[in-house]
């Protein structure tokens, strides 16, 4: 066991820091921020992602032959750490990188890898995810979107929901029913769908924070070439499970952890600067207990992710451990924002841009957003089923 970094790993970090110092706009995070407008922000993030790619910082641990850097999982973790350290913008094509790319890399044909992977890394293709449907949420295997084969083409009809960033996407990977007569897990296929195809329409779906990150996406006689299937026909459930393991896995968790850790640091700074009567709020022993509990939980998020990275490095398969990671971080983060609201009382309700809002009013929005953590990417109930059945071997 060793938590220290090798000279090569430290070198990677140094190079990245140097590059970032040049690449970020002057005053970034202090006087210069992301655009407020949702669309402008999306374009800003896309531009940043393309800049990373141009600098050679896209696909850190992907093979060089598909446009990646060929580095290690540890270097990927360092990358996430450094990006967060400087508060770098998020990417727009996270689903492309983490899910579409990882799935194609594992299960795609050579032709698919050659075509799609470089275009993901360059963010020429932004991706969205077509899994959930109105009646297939936790029960994902009950998707009804049909794909009927006609010659060299699938004809896709149906409706997907929670398709994040669909409005900016060139491609969508979707779980569709190709055999309506088979048992529900057995009749599914995993298709790659060009979002420019005729018959696709998108309706934005507002979430409780007021933002429109999600969409409903409708497919009306959409034609998809049969070459755009990943894996065999009717073997889509197995492919989708790979996607989900990446969605819930340590790469995703580590990136989030660093942002939560920054938010927590900001919270502590805010509390330290908040007067409460004759003293400062940070001196309140009850407040300190709550903060320390979150400090611990956020650190444990990181350690969980790093331990799981180590298992993969040491050759273990990706399995239900991704559910352990996701169940942990989602609840710990909710606890943190709930604690933030508790601690900031009585002014907890005051939000940005009110001059009296604590910490620039970021915590109210994050608090509301955090309610989705335990629902998306598989609800906590589903994660507990997976852990109970697949990790602990309890009966169905």
């Amino acid at each position, binding site marked *: 066991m060793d938590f220290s970094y090798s000279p090569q790993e430290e070198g990677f970090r140094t190079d990245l820091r140097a590059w970032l110092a040049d690449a970020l706009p002057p005053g970034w995070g202090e006087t210069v921020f992301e655009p407020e407008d949702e669309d402008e922000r999306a374009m800003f993030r896309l531009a940043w992602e393309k800049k990373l790619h141009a600098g050679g910082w896209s696909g850190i641990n992907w093979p060089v032959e598909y446009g990646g850097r060929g580095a290690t999982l540890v270097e990927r973790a360092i990358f996430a750490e450094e990006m967060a350290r400087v508060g770098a913008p998020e990417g727009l094509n996270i689903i492309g990188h983490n899910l579409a790319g990882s799935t194609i890399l594992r299960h795609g044909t050579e032709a698919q890898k050659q075509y799609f992977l470089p275009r993901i890394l360059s963010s020429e293709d932004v991706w969205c995810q077509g899994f959930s449907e109105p009646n297939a*949420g936790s029960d994902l295997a009950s998707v009804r979107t049909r794909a009927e084969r006609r010659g060299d083409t699938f004809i896709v009809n149906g409706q997907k929901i929670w398709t994040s960033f669909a409005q900016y996407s060139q491609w969508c990977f979707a779980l569709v029913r190709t055999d309506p007569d088979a048992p529900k897990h057995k009749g599914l296929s995993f298709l790659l769908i060009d979002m420019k195809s005729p018959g696709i329409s998108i309706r934005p*779906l507002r979430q*409780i924070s*007021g933002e429109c990150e999600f969409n409903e996406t409708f497919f009306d006689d959409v034609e998809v070439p049969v070459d755009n299937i990943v894996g065999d026909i009717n073997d889509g459930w197995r492919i989708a499970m790979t996607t989900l393991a990446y969605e819930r896995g340590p790469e995703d968790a580590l990136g989030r952890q660093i942002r939560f850790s920054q938010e927590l640091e900001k919270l502590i700074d805010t509390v330290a600067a908040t007067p409460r009567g004759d003293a400062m709020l940070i001196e309140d022993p009850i407040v300190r207990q709550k903060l320390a509990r979150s400090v611990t939980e956020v650190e444990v998020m990181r350690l969980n992710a790093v331990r799981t990275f180590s298992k993969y490095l040491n050759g273990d398969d990706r399995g239900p451990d991704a559910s352990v990671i996701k169940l942990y971080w989602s609840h710990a983060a909710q606890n943190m924002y709930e604690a933030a609201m508790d601690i900031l*009382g009585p002014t907890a*309700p005051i939000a940005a841009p009110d001059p009296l809002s604590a910490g620039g009013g970021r915590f109210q929005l994050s608090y509301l957003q955090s309610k989705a953590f335990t629902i998306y990417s598989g609800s906590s109930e589903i994660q507990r089923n997976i852990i109970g059945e697949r990790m602990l071997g309890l009966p169905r």
Partner: protein
Amino acid sequence: MNFGFNEEQKSLGDTVAALLADFPALTGPDPAQARDPAVWQALADLGLFALLVPEAHGGVGLTLVDVALAIEALGAGLAPPIAASTMIATDIIVREGTAAQQASLLPRIATGELRIALAMLENGQGYDPDAVQTVMGGNGVTGSKILVPDADIADLLLVLSRVDGGVGLVLVARDARGVSIRHHADIDPSSGLCEVTLDGAALMDDALVGHAGSGDVVPRLMDAAAIVYAGMAMGMAARMLDAAVDYAKTRVQFGQPIGAFQSIKHRCADMAVAVEAGRSAAYYAFWTAAENDPDRSRSASMAKAYCGEVARDVCNETVQIHGGMGFTWELGLHRFLRRAKVLEHGFGNHVWHYERIMAETLAAQAAGDKAQAA
């Protein structure tokens, strides 16, 4: 001894609930669209604001326990906070107002003519009313109040202020000289939370509420407000529980209603227990306030602390049980999350009230030991 409501009390709750249901925007998805001034008039026409006013002043002469279910309904229906604020202020004026104040204000309250907002909190202070910095002096009231619900639509402000070296409540007209009002940006735009700046604000005639020498006016206000907020929190929690149970009965996944799964069923059961427990705490507090029982402050704090936690937990769980639908804007569950945060932090959060419970408990225990020794 009987811990049940009578038919009149129940019917009052049902009537308020039915009235609010006629204004669907109140619980609609957009908090900015939820402030319909017609609601106030409808409640006034119903006679809600006459209930706590004594008959001698044109009211019905009921007590807080009589309106407990009506207040639950205000919470459940996300009614404009000014309704609750006015009722809390009515209780204070009835209990602690001078004869002149009662004569001049109560008849106008009864008809719905006067909306009264409660201006308590200040920036940089905690919840403790004794920490207030606003001062009433010869040239009016000076200070800055934050998080005053519906201040912008109020006629009067009941302002917590230092008065003659103590702490008291002072009446200020909203349109008086020296009063300026600014909307907060906040988590619940439907609560109309405002910052109120008082710069030598002109006092009403006979502005100081509280009989000379009565030290109970501020504690009574804190208790009445805590109890009313606890009641509203329970109304919200009960409504969210119903929503969760209804959804669990109808939403099918894995071939059965999700309410058949123990993970959902047991959580609904725990919520039901929490709602019953919270109601026990709240109803008892309503009774102690109505009777001005010696246990009033302790029970008010128990209700506020406990019901605030119950409402928070139930709102969170209800979102979770609704899955993806739970965090859509359109379904509007977030309206309850938002309002619950406002109620939770109004008039003391659970930490402040638990501390107060402990102080009250130790005082009672010491008094009991003393009595036993004597």
